[in-house]
């Protein structure tokens, strides 16, 4: 893949990440917010992969996208409701 195409893809991915991060701020439903937070982590992982940082991508996917999301979900379960 050419460097220009690569940079364009990275920019698109970063843009999606940015939009998702802003959406989390304004969304009222806690469950959706948690899932979108997980998506932000997952796209960060994809971005690392694009930059050939495979080791970091693996760590980000396992910790940021899975474990952190799960801990948020438990916290939500404990709070007993949305908002």
């Amino acid at each position, binding site marked *: 893949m050419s*460097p220009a195409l*690569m*940079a364009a893809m*990275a*920019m698109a991915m*970063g843009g999606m990440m*940015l939009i998702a*991060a*802003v959406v989390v*701020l*304004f969304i009222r439903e806690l469950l959706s917010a948690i899932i979108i937070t997980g998506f932000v982590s997952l796209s960060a992982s994809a971005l690392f992969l*694009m*930059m050939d940082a*495979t*080791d970091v*991508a*693996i*760590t980000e996917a*396992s*910790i940021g996208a*899975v*474990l952190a999301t*799960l801990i948020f979900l*438990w916290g939500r*379960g*404990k709070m007993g409701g949305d908002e």
Partner: protein
Amino acid sequence: MIRTLTGLAVILLLGAVTAAIVPYMGLSQELTGAGREYADQGMTATGSSNLVTAVIVAYRGLDTLGEVVVLFCASTAVVLILTLFPLGSRPSEPSIIVAHTSSALPAPIMLLAVYFIAHSHLSPGGGFPGGTVMASVFLLVMLGSSSVPGRSGALPAVEALAGISFGLLGFWGVMTLGQFLNNTVLGRGIPGELLSAGIIPLISLAIGAKVASEFSGVFAAFRKSGGVE
């Protein structure tokens, strides 16, 4: 409202900074300074074909040891808090999807975790990601049943053994070559073979076992205190 606006400002600022940096990241192919040194010398000096692991475990092994200590303190604190202040609810029966998934997936995920740890010096992966993936197997099995994990000495024993062996591997270098965590006490081997790269595979194994047992202990504490449903 103020919190939302502050968050928005922080996100936009970070986005702008990243957008300014990203175009230069992929395009600058020239390495400078320490990166040049690692890329040129790393493979012959450590015998590890995965340079990231070589840097994490061999060149910056002391930092990794510190990181392991920090993780140990954090997990101990979480388990302590969860034990002192139970959240107080019983785990419910898992749904049929979770129950079936948790009987099918653990074996392949475990294989991936073992691969990450055992091939840390050959291909992307390493002790830390491998350990977290292994802990997620524990979590999956736990979520697939409605029982509470009993009191077991196995997890703390593995954790202690792994931590001690990391330190002892470091002192092996002191004893033989007069340098803490010297990687070459076992010889470098041929880069690309499973048994190569000195003590890097052993340290990866220790880190993987430690991280896996720590995270599993945290999950078990969550379950016992009623946090996982």
